[in-house]
């Protein structure tokens, strides 16, 4: 049985470890601050109204971001400081500080930095650090090499730094699909495999618009929620494309990727399908059913929160407390419905169109 002395010793050790993590992250931030100006590739994106200046030690990573993000060069508020995000790798920058001790866990890094007004995370499988200092408007992603990035990085590169730097108490990102019409829209929320991406793609094929099928930027304004696109691509596997009458051999489709899914610019697949902004009217929780026609029934706020929060917080780590609160404000502002999906993609799209136009049947 552990004694009080053991507990005290463990606590002291934990504190030393947290201090070590913090010191390392400060060293890396200082390094990024010094090197940012000479990084060989730079890009600027506007996300959630904030101007994000990316600097890359590897130009290949700049290509990755240019492929994934929408090139939105909106005039920023002159009072806003541009946020610098440095994506650094040890191969390109051999003098990059390295963490030479035992790999920390995600919880260690999040807690150690949150206590010291930084955000951070660590991916122990790929040995990648993510660090963000809001006071310096500076973030850094540190990895062993360009090739050591996770397979899923291409779909949404630098996601944690973008998530932390672009968020506020009323703005952030949400992991959900979207469909809309004439400026009004719905979220499609739920666990993987529930039919979010297929339903989104079916919708745009059948004349609806979308801000994205995976991650979208959101803003909660009182009792209104707005969604905006930030990513260019959607994903779908060959079976899903075939189900919608689409052949994966078209030049629009790239891949398949690590998930055996084809990636595509949905506005090229269906010109005009990407909307700049949607006023969100409902959270739909799709579920695959064998019914002849799709149907809607009210869902509780608790059910909507459980459909949205787990995947959002899993995919967008490091600011769980604030994101939990932001998601709750979305759920309170927008009614939720279960959507029992029929087996007919066109019928599903028409049902959602009618829902957006007229509300719940």
């Amino acid at each position, binding site marked *: 049985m552990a004694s009080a002395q053991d507990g005290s010793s*463990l606590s002291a050790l934990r504190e030393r470890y947290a201090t070590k993590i913090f010191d390392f992250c400060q060293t890396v931030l200082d390094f990024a601050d010094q090197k940012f100006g000479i990084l060989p590739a730079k890009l600027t994106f506007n996300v959630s109204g904030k101007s994000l200046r990316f600097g890359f030690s590897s130009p290949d990573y700049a290509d990755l971001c240019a492929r994934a993000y929408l090139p939105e060069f909106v005039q920023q508020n002159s009072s806003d400081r541009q946020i610098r995000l440095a994506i650094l790798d040890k191969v390109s920058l051999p003098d990059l500080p390295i963490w030479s001790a035992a*790999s920390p866990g995600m*919880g260690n890094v*999040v807690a150690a930095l949150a206590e010291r007004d930084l955000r951070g995370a660590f991916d122990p499988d790929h040995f990648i650090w993510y660090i963000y200092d809001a006071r310096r408007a500076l973030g850094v992603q540190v990895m062993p090499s360009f090739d050591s990035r996770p397979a899923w990085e291409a779909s949404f590169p630098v996601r944690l730094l973008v998530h932390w730097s672009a968020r506020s108490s009323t703005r952030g990102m949400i992991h959900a699909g979207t469909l809309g019409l004439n400026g009004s829209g719905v979220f499609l929320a739920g666990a993987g495999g529930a039919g979010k991406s297929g339903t989104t793609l079916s919708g745009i094929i059948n004349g609806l618009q979308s801000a994205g099928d995976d991650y979208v930027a959101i803003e909660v304004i009182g009792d209104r929620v707005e969604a905006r696109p930030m990513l260019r691509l959607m994903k779908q596997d060959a079976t899903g494309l075939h189900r919608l009458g689409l052949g994966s051999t078209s030049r629009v489709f790239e891949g398949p990727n690590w998930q055996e899914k084809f990636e595509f610019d949905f506005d090229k697949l269906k010109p005009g399908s990407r909307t700049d902004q949607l006023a969100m009217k409902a959270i739909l929780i799709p579920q695959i059913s064998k019914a002849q026609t799709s149907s809607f029934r009210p869902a*509780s706020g608790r059910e909507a929160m*459980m459909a949205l929060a787990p995947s959002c917080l899993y995919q967008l780590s490091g600011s769980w407390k604030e994101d939990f*609160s932001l998601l*709750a404000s979305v*759920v309170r502002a927008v009614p939720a419905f279960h959507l029992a999906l029929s087996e007919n993609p066109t019928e599903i799209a028409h049902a959602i169109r009618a829902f957006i136009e007229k509300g719940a049947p």
Partner: protein
Amino acid sequence: MSLDSKPVNHVVASSDIVSEEFDGEFVVLDLSCGKYFSMDETASAIWRAIVAGISTQSLAEAAGTEGAVNSASILEFLEKLVGFGCLTPSDAPGSTSIDSALIQLLATSDKPPTVEVFDDLADLIMADPIHDVEEASGWPVRKTEAA
């Protein structure tokens, strides 16, 4: 169940326990371990009372000994939340001012309080190399390395 011995009070275990309410139902998230707790209406009413500082004894007495929600089921539910790490026993005196709506809900509920647990985030958070460190040698020497 006899309330001859005064039950201990309960408080939210730590600042890592955050909760959000939706039309009378709570979703609770433990930031330290990544577990979610989804509470039905009765469980949520009890959670709200505990967060408001109502004493355990007052809650149990308000529920009485009859019905689906009674003193025994409330104490059992609170112990379950202690086991989950959401609540912790407390010596602090609790409030006795239970509102009539809560008493009515406890009296009319047809099932005991229920909470569903989800651990989607747990594997992201729980890895903790501190547990693997050999204290005699000092960090960062791992136990396996020191052995």
